[in-house]
C-alpha cells in the first residue's frame, strides 16, 4: 500500500465515522474523489481487517445498500446502560406479520394484506408508516386506484439487511409448497402492474 492509498482509507474512515446513515460505495467514491466504488469496497474490507487486528470495539457493517460503522454486539450491555431511555420499542407480532407480507409482495395494497392476514391492518399500517418501515410507493391501476405499499431503506437498516435479496426464506415451507401445491408459490410471485409515475404528470 502506498501513501495515497492510506490517505483514501483514512478519508473513508472519517466519512463513515461522521455519517448518520449508511453510505453506498458509489457515494463514498464520489466523496473521497479519485477512487472507484470497487476500490471503496476493497478499502472497507481492509478497514475491517485493521479493526479486527487492533481489537477495536466497532466495525463496518454492510447494510441497506451501504456501509456504516457500528459497535460489536458484545458491548451491547454496557451501551444499554449509557442509553437508558432505550431505543424504539420492539414491533408487535401483528406489525411483524404485516411487514413480512409487505416485504415479499411489494408493491401491495391494504386489501391484499388484510386478505392474507385475515384481519384489518389499518392500525398496524399506520405504525409501520410512522416508523418509516413502510412507505407509499404508488397506486394500483384500476378500480378505486388503491395505494400501494413497499418497504423503506430504514426497513433494511432496522433488520440489519444489506438488501431485499437478503430477506430470510422459510425453507421448510417452500419445500412443502414445491411438493404439494405449486400454485401457491406462483400466487406469491405474481407480478403486478404499477402505475408509471412518468405518465401522471
Amino acid at each position: 500500500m502506498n501513501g495515497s492509498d492510506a490517505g483514501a482509507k483514512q478519508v473513508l474512515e472519517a466519512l463513515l465515522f461522521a455519517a448518520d446513515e449508511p453510505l453506498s460505495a458509489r457515494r463514498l467514491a464520489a466523496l473521497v474523489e479519485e477512487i472507484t466504488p470497487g476500490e471503496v469496497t476493497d478499502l472497507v474490507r481492509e478497514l475491517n481487517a485493521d479493526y479486527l487486528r487492533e481489537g477495536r470495539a466497532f466495525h463496518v457493517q454492510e447494510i441497506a445498500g451501504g456501509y456504516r460503522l457500528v459497535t460489536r454486539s458484545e458491548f451491547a450491555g454496557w451501551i444499554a446502560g449509557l442509553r437508558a431511555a432505550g431505543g424504539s420499542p420492539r414491533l408487535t407480532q401483528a406489525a411483524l406479520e404485516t411487514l413480512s407480507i409487505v416485504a415479499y409482495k411489494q408493491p401491495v395494497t391494504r386489501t391484499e394484506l388484510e386478505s392474507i392476514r385475515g384481519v384489518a391492518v389499518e392500525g398496524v399500517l399506520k405504525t409501520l408508516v410512522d416508523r418509516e418501515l413502510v412507505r407509499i410507493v404508488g397506486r394500483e391501476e384500476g378500480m378505486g386506484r388503491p395505494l400501494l405499499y413497499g418497504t423503506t431503506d430504514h426497513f433494511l437498516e432496522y433488520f440489519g439487511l444489506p438488501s431485499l435479496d437478503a430477506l430470510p426464506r422459510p425453507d421448510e415451507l417452500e419445500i412443502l409448497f414445491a411438493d404439494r401445491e405449486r400454485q401457491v408459490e406462483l400466487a406469491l410471485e405474481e407480478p403486478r402492474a404499477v402505475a408509471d409515475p412518468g405518465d401522471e404528470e
Partner: protein
Amino acid sequence: MADEAQPGHSVRIETLDFEGPLDLLVYLVQKNEVDIWDIPIALITEQFLAYLQNMSAERLEGAGEFLLMAATLLRIKSQMLLPRPQLDEDEELEDPRRELVLKILEYQQYREIAEQLRERESAGRLVFARGMPEWDDALIAEAGHAPPEPGERVSLGDLLRSFTRLMEEARRDRVHHLEPLGVTIEEKAEFVRERLRREGQTSFRDLFVPGEPRSHWIVTFVALLEMVREGEIRLRQGERFGEIHVYAAGSAA
C-alpha cells in the same frame, strides 16, 4: 353464553390471545397434530367455536373476523357431509377444504418470516451506530464551510401527519363551537330498539341519520356495539362489505 369450556375434544385455549382467525387456526392445527392436507374439519370447527364463546368482551372489536371464519368453517363442514357426486374420469372433485388450507399455509409462511425478522430485530438491538456528531460543525466551520441548517429530519409520514393534524384542529374548532354532543348511548340504544319494534329489522346504514352531526353517529355506533355484546341484537351480512342488517336477538331472522 356459557362460561364453561366445551366438553369433549375441546382444547383449553381461552387464556391465549390470537392475532386473528388464521392465527387461531394455525394454533389448532398444530395443537391437534393433524395433517394440514387432511384437516378434520368437524373437530377444528368445534374447537374454533369454543374459543369464540370464551372470547372476552374487550376483544369484540376484532370478533367480526373470527365470526366470518366461523361461518366459513361451518360451510365447509356442511359441504363435507354432502354425498359425493358421480364424476367423469377426467373430472376432479375439488376438496371443499382446499381454499382454506392454501390460506392457512400462505399465512403460516409469512408468520415464519415474521419470526425470522423478530430474531434479526433482536440482533439489531445489540449494535449501535454513531449518533449525529454535532460537534463536527465547529470543525467544518473552521474549514470554511457553512454548518448545516438546524431543524427536524422529515419523512413523508411527517408531512402527512402534519397535514392531518392541521385539518383535525380546524375541524375540532368548528365542532366545539357549533355542536355540543347532546345525546347519550342509552338514548341511541332506545332509538335502535324503537326502530326494531316498528320494523322488525333494519339496515345498519339506515341507523345513521343523514345530516346528523358525526358525533351522534359515533354514539349510535358505540350503542350498537354495546347491544351486540349484550346479546340484544344480531348483525348479519350477505357478502363481505355488503349491506349489514340488524335484527332483534329474539326474532326469527
